[in-house]
């Protein structure tokens, strides 16, 4: 069985879904269903007491893991605070660490992310840190107890696909203790398939689904792309073909 293991939990879908930017909670509910996802990200926000909205959690099936992100945090301390508050809801201890001071590109602060991971992993959280792909940072995160490493494919919301492909491949080659989950920038199902084909453990997609004309259908497209990419990875590179040659310039001397 080719299951994805995160924080000791076995998942059969390698498609993680972000829940931001959807038109309505009803639409989100349908999208979750068509995506087959088993992990969705959520953010923690102050309630507007004037409005009486039902909670998003009601639209997420019970068997789907809530991955609370720390968006809004500008340093490790704030991220830790948000994570602890998220856990206090009693709805789980999975946290996606997202720490940014850069509002122009929304690039994550790798160093603060390592610090937050150290603290939260030691407090028993299942930590999924979001980073700019960097091998030393990834190693430090694994050492700190992260349950996965989430390198960005390209800038958040840019839909540009795997601009950081080479660096992601380095992480996939060198980090085998935890899954590498490509997050951010996946704009099309083909990007998701590409990420899976090169050996990523999973992908996280939000904008591309939420801003599609038909989000539920796009969710299904992504789900299929992720499956296809994974199948391709498991099928392995094709047979090295032995091209017939008239001469063997390098090893011919062995027969002389």
């Amino acid at each position, binding site marked *: 069985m080719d299951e994805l293991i995160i924080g000791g939990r076995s998942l059969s879908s390698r498609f993680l879904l972000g829940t931001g930017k959807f038109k309505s909670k009803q639409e989100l509910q349908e999208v979750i269903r068509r995506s087959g996802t088993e992990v969705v990200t959520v953010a923690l926000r102050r309630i507007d007491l004037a409005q009486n909205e039902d909670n998003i959690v009601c639209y997420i099936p019970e068997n789907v893991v809530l991955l609370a992100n720390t968006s809004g945090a500008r340093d490790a301390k704030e991220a830790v605070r948000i994570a602890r508050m998220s856990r206090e809801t009693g709805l789980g201890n999975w946290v996606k660490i997202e720490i940014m001071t850069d509002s122009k590109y929304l690039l994550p602060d790798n160093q603060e992310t390592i610090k937050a991971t150290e603290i939260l992993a030691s407090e028993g959280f299942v930590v999924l840190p979001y980073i700019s792909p960097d091998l030393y940072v990834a190693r430090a995160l694994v050492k700190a107890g992260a349950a996965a490493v989430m390198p960005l494919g390209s800038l958040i919301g840019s839909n540009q696909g795997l601009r950081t492909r080479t660096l992601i491949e380095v992480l996939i080659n*060198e980090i085998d203790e935890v899954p590498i989950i490509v997050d951010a920038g996946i704009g099309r199902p083909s990007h998701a398939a590409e990420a899976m084909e090169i050996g990523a453990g999973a992908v996280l997609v939000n904008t591309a689904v939420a801003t599609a004309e038909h989000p539920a259908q796009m969710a299904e497209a992504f789900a299929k792309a992720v499956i296809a990419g994974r199948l391709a990875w498991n099928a392995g590179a094709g047979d*090295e073909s*032995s*091209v017939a*040659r008239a001469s*063997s*310039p*390098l*090893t*011919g*001397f*062995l027969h002389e």
Partner: protein
Amino acid sequence: MSRLDALFERDLEDLAREAQRLTRQYFGRAISLFAPLYLSNYCENGCLYCGFSSRMPIQREKLTPEQIDAECKALSGSGIQNVLLLTGESRVHSPLGYLLQAVEIAKRCFPNIAIEVQPMDTADYKTLVAAGVDGLTVFQETYDEALYPTLHPLGHKHDYRYRYNTPARAAEAGIRRIGFGALLGLNDWRPEAEALFAHVANIEKRFPGVDLAISFPRLLPISGAAVQPKPVGDGDLVRIMCIARILFSRAGIILSTRENARFRDHVFPIMVTQLSAASATTVGGYARPRVNHDEQFAPSDERSLAEIKEMLITQGYDPVFTDWRRL
């Protein structure tokens, strides 16, 4: 079929082309040159296949500091800047103190110093690293745990695990480069090659900052030894070396003067990045005349350094004598 099995089954010319492509990509056409300097042939072990065995009635000698100095001057005078200091494995005759003294002397002549001596503890390696040793070579000889003790009945070398963990201890001590090898011919070469690759991969994973290099010594038949080789054919050796290059794209691949000139000239362009040149494999041998006591280590390629350098340049390669030095 696993990836490794596929590599062992693959067409040899195909393998060679990929190995060459990777070597060009990561090393260009640079070939590092080094030379061995034997300081002592005293040995406490009794390896069944070796002419230096404590049971062999050969003349034992060990260089004095003055002789080491003379040898270093002669060798470095020829142009060599990367020296491999070797001793037989003897904690009595070439203990840490003797080695440190040799390193102090060698440092005056060579920016790069590696050693191939008896396996030691991490603490001793730390001392050697601090003294200026940047490389360590140790061959496991055979990776077969059942065969190993029968071939090494005497001396500290009898301990398989201790020897196997030598690269890890050296890495922990902060050594910069480590050389691996199995003595091909003691056992069937396929399992030996696989175990060798597993050993290298293990150290590569645990100590990502260390430079790795792999040698492929082939056992030659020697008179009087109790063990005669299971011969490894030239084609098999080329195959093993190609696979090593493909598996470890940044590791040094070494070809020593044990192999004859014809073999070396055809093989080095495929995947080799380090060549020993003009080697003396007797004790000393650069300042003093060479007296060959034992065929096991006798060089087959007897070209001078100048000849090798010229051959490399003519063939379009870049002979490199040193590529870094401690400041």
